[in-house]
């Protein structure tokens, strides 16, 4: 067990480095590429009204006239201390603006993640029991179909089907941003299903491939020759090995999940961070965009870290080998 500490320590340090790199990229993208925050936020027509001196003053106020690396250091330090500054247009603290949407989206993503993992594991195991068989073809075919449907289309179809035709729920649950969390949860049901329909397909294929490989392995054959029943081989012998490639794809998976939730939130008018992002983009609110980008990356990196630790737990070879990491 103690051998794990250097490995975990290395991963934590690595995550920190990666997060800093991400902050750098976000910074470069928003503050260094053509035009800076001032010219980006304030449209050209308005800008014309300011005298050069006033613009220079504003630049100075925002610290935009300092050298790039100094600015980055300041941004980096602020991001890591979770002090996101104030918005440009309304001058309100970014933190207050995004707190509730952030929590709402976290609920949405969290529930979606849990549901997706459960669905993927169940479907993956069922499909791999008899590869090429009817159940496998049915599930694989369906997931292929749902994966091919654009997520915004699926969401819209859901709205049409559930809200309009079946009248199961109001067209959109209008939850305001700081509604009680249970309302948020109720509002999250449809978006979660919409997310799962599209997002689960990719993980399903990874798990199915992993399961088939594990079931074709020598150790699965030995167990079968020794008279171990099929279900036990599936769950006890094959599944833990099969989960590893799926877990290794977690970073990409969570990033895609967050990406997808922006679309889904937009369609369902869910009061989450996605809607906030779109608004900030329309208004060119750099501080908000930076904050959201940083937090999203943080979520992905943390998820990846957890997945790495899960792999360590599942694969004793990684745990006891000093060569890995």
């Amino acid at each position: 067990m103690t051998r794990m500490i250097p490995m975990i320590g290395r991963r934590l340090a690595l995550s920190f480095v990666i997060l800093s790199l991400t902050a750098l990229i976000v910074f470069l993208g928003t503050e260094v590429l053509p035009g800076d925050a001032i010219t980006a936020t304030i449209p050209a027509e308005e800008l014309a009204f300011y005298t050069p001196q006033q613009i220079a003053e504003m630049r100075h106020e925002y610290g935009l006239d300092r050298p790039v690396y100094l600015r980055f250091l300041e941004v980096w330090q602020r991001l890591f201390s979770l002090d996101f500054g104030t918005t440009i247009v309304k001058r309100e603290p970014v933190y207050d603006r995004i707190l509730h949407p952030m929590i709402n989206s976290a609920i949405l993503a969290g529930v979606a993640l849990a549901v997706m993992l459960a669905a993927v594991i169940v479907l993956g195991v069922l499909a791999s029991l008899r590869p090429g068989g009817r159940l496998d073809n049915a599930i694989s075919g369906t997931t292929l179909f749902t994966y091919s449907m654009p997520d915004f289309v699926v969401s819209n179809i859901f709205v049409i089907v559930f809200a309009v035709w079946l009248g199961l729920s109001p067209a959109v649950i209008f939850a305001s941003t700081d509604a009680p969390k249970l309302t948020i949860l109720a509002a999250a049901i449809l978006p979660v299903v919409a997310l799962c329909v599209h997002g689960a397909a990719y993980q399903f294929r990874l798990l199915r491939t992993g399961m088939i490989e594990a079931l074709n392995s020598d150790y699965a054959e030995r167990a079968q020759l020794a008279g171990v029943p099929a279900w036990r081989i599936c769950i006890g012998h094959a599944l833990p090995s099969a989960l590893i490639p799926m877990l290794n794809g977690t970073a990409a998976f969570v990033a895609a999940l967050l990406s997808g939730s922006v679309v889904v939130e937009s369609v369902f008018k869910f009061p989450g961070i996605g809607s906030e992002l779109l608004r900030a983009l329309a208004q060119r609110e750099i501080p908000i965009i930076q904050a959201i980008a940083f937090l999203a990356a943080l979520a992905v990196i943390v998820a990846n870290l957890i997945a790495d630790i899960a792999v360590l737990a599942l694969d004793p070879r990684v745990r006891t080998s000093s060569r890995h990491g």
Partner: protein
Amino acid sequence: MPAHPHIEVRDLKLVYRTGPKTETTAIDAVSFSIAKGETLGIVGESGCGKSSLARAFLAYTRPGARIAGGSLSVAGLDVLKLKPDQLLAYRGRRAAMVPQNPLSSLTPHLTIGQHLVELIRLHKAAGGRTPKEKALELLAAMELPDPAAIYDRYPHQLSGGQRQRVVIAAALVAEPELIILDEPTTALDKTVESQVLDLVARLQKRTGTTLIYVSHDLNVIARMCERVFVMKDGKVLEDGPTSAVFTHPRTDYARSLIAAIPKLETAKPSNVTPFHGQGAALSIEKLEFSYARPPGWNPLRRLFPNAPQPPTLADISLAIPPGTTLGVVGESGSGKSTLAALVAGLAAGNGGEMRFDGQILSGLAPQRDRDLRRRVQMIFQDPASSLNPQHTVEQLIARPLQIFFGMSRAAARERTVELLTELGLGATFLDRSPRQLSGGQQQRVAIARAFAGKPDLVLCDEVTSALDVTVQASVLGVMKRLQREHGTTYLFISHDLPVVAEMSDQILVLEKGRVRDYGDTTAVLSDPSSDYTKNLLAAFATASQQLTNRTMKHAS
């Protein structure tokens, strides 16, 4: 044959799918009977159907294969007709299998204890004790030291021999009446194999179980089995008592198979005495190598460093006279492949000196002089991975011709055909891709490629270990002929002592990176100076000695 044979096979036929509409026959309507307590060996080269037959005894077919006819009865019960739940009661309980590769046959995330307890519970074999107690008992019966510690370990933490004993223990959980062993010792070192085979023999004598032993290694079969089948192309060509079949095979195939086995008694008589220094094609002085990697620039690795590793090679000194063969023998982890890599220039040593024809062999190949590179070539173990699948045979052999001699395409092609002919292949092989060749053909292409540069020293790293015995014999023959015709020096590495003995004028025995014995082949083999070599010799000798014993027994 007793009135009620234990196992009765009638017209068994097994096919497997090779394409959407095509099938190939793996077992071709075989029939035979086996008595209770008999020890039967099934011998054959790759593709003969022995593995399929072994699994058929457990009514199991690999994915893509199916039983196309016939019956297989164990104690009167046709196991091929069993329903799924009946199969669960049969497998592991009345018949069990010990598979080939113990590392990949054990589930990596389950402890040894979990493996055994699962089976003990399934087959209700605890017999009054707790499952854990029964498991520990089994481990102890396998003569494993410290069963309690092994109980909690994972498969990759055990040595090859220990893993195989665990797999055998798992097969014995329910005390089955039939045990099938599919090449169980192929992946093990020779000395370990000896011990495992002794264990299996003892267990069989004690319990009177019917034993079916599948292998390509005739020596092992000779040692373990009273009766033997020789299989080829799904048919049983020979069936009889082991000594009879080995001394008087009836078919040509069996004859050639037996003749192809390298035997220690036919060790190459050498006519050179080892001398160090002048005139040696390759001489090495106190070579050292270890894999340890300094943390270097990466601050993360400095903060959280890996554990240090022991040196892989230490204090290696040798000298090969030109035109002769030095055989390097060692088991896994001895460092023999590392030695080849160092001489070839694929890795750089940490100390010591290597000289070839008087010139110093510096570290890595790109740093060496081109002519030197040309003169030192290497042939690898797995021909499938040493030939680029995207290149044709012509491209593979022409490349060194272009690099070392600057030949034009036309000239290179002519020379390639010459080389291919020398190796028993023809111009028709020019535009084939490696995937279209058999193992033996691939290895010949690899040899042709190595000889294209007219090298003076060829390093052979387990070049025939992946080949069938008859193919191995022909490839070794080709290599000897090339040496006679071109005066090439060989550094011949293998774990297989009889093969090395047959090929080499001098032998060097490596253990854990150190030289244990070094000298003339006949001298080292008849009077080894180290205990390690003595044990190695004993392990190999026992195997072929059994063959000789049976031969003599039959003759007398």
